[in-house]
């Protein structure tokens, strides 16, 4: 998104993550206009330092579902960020929060769908499940 000309700011607890951002870039992250802040997503100070107050979009994609759901609600309710997207691995909860009006992305769901498609494509034509029901796809 940085390459497309957007202003992108990353917040991460681990200072080392900065190096990962620069993999495959010909210039430094900051030289390209990116911002990087070290801090925890639940810390109000860190969110403000990362620029949440002027953000048009906020993506909560830490490795913890619970953290993401909480931070996303903070971004939505306290900072009124217009677009908030939340990564939730647990499909059941992703579904419920989606119904509550949260914009969620569930990588597990996406992976299941892709794997299912791959399996179906690998099956010989006309193959039917063992119980004889016709294939849905």
């Amino acid at each position, binding site marked *: 998104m940085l390459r497309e000309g957007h202003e992108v700011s990353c917040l991460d607890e681990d200072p080392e993550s900065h190096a990962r951002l620069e993999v495959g870039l010909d210039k430094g992250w900051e030289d390209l206009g990116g911002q990087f802040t070290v801090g925890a997503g639940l810390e*109000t100070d860190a969110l403000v330092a990362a620029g949440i107050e002027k953000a048009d979009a906020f993506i909560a994609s830490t490795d913890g579902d*619970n953290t993401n759901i909480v931070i996303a*609600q903070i971004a939505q*309710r306290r900072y009124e960020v217009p677009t908030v997207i939340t990564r939730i691995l647990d499909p*059941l909860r992703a579904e*419920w929060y989606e119904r*509550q009006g949260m914009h969620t992305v569930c990588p597990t769901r996406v992976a299941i769908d892709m794997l299912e498609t791959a399996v179906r494509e690998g099956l010989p034509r006309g193959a039917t499940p063992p119980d004889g029901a016709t294939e849905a796809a």
Partner: protein
Amino acid sequence: MYIIVVGAGKVGWNLARELLEKEHEVTVIESNRRRYLTVEQELEHNVSYGDASELWVLERAGIQRADMVIAVTGDDEDNMLICQVAREKYEVERIIARVNNPRNKPHFDLLGIKPSVSATDLILRLLEHEVPEYGLVHLLDLQEEQLEIIEMLLGKDCGVTGRRVGDLQMPEGSLLISVLRKGKGFVPGPDTVLEVGDEVLAVLDPGHEEQLKTLFGPADNGAGAGG
């Protein structure tokens, strides 16, 4: 009442014990296998293994018919979301959440998780209660003997300095037992005149603390109580 307690740490386990003693129906949910096995030896079928962040774990514990959900894990995000889901999805009437890090308290409020209980806050409040500006320190509770001993530092604005101990209208059931002045302690008599900077010890029946605080507090309060 049917109560679900999430987290079988020290708080959760002891809470569950108390609730069971009071004859409530209780299920404790614990996500750490080893901890679960330890607690299960005592609580048996009243403890359930699983991550209560997951909806099916809550449903297996019967959250649909729960009257109360108490989230006391060591993780604030877990406590917040478990309570949020309990109230908003399963319409549990009463929820209580534990706040581990007091800095997260505004997040609980933002998500409408009430009441939330923070041990740090409780201790702070207790400290304020026990150590107000004129320095009343709760030294000892003799519960069996039904007595308390407290220490008070007499400040500049204290209402009793310059007065004879014999003239003080000490609340019934309380007694000044010693005065520490310039590093030396003595037992005050009726003629002892109290000075600014004195540290006095008093023994009292429980419940007389407020009266003593008023008497030994800033002059405007003290005068009212003395009259």
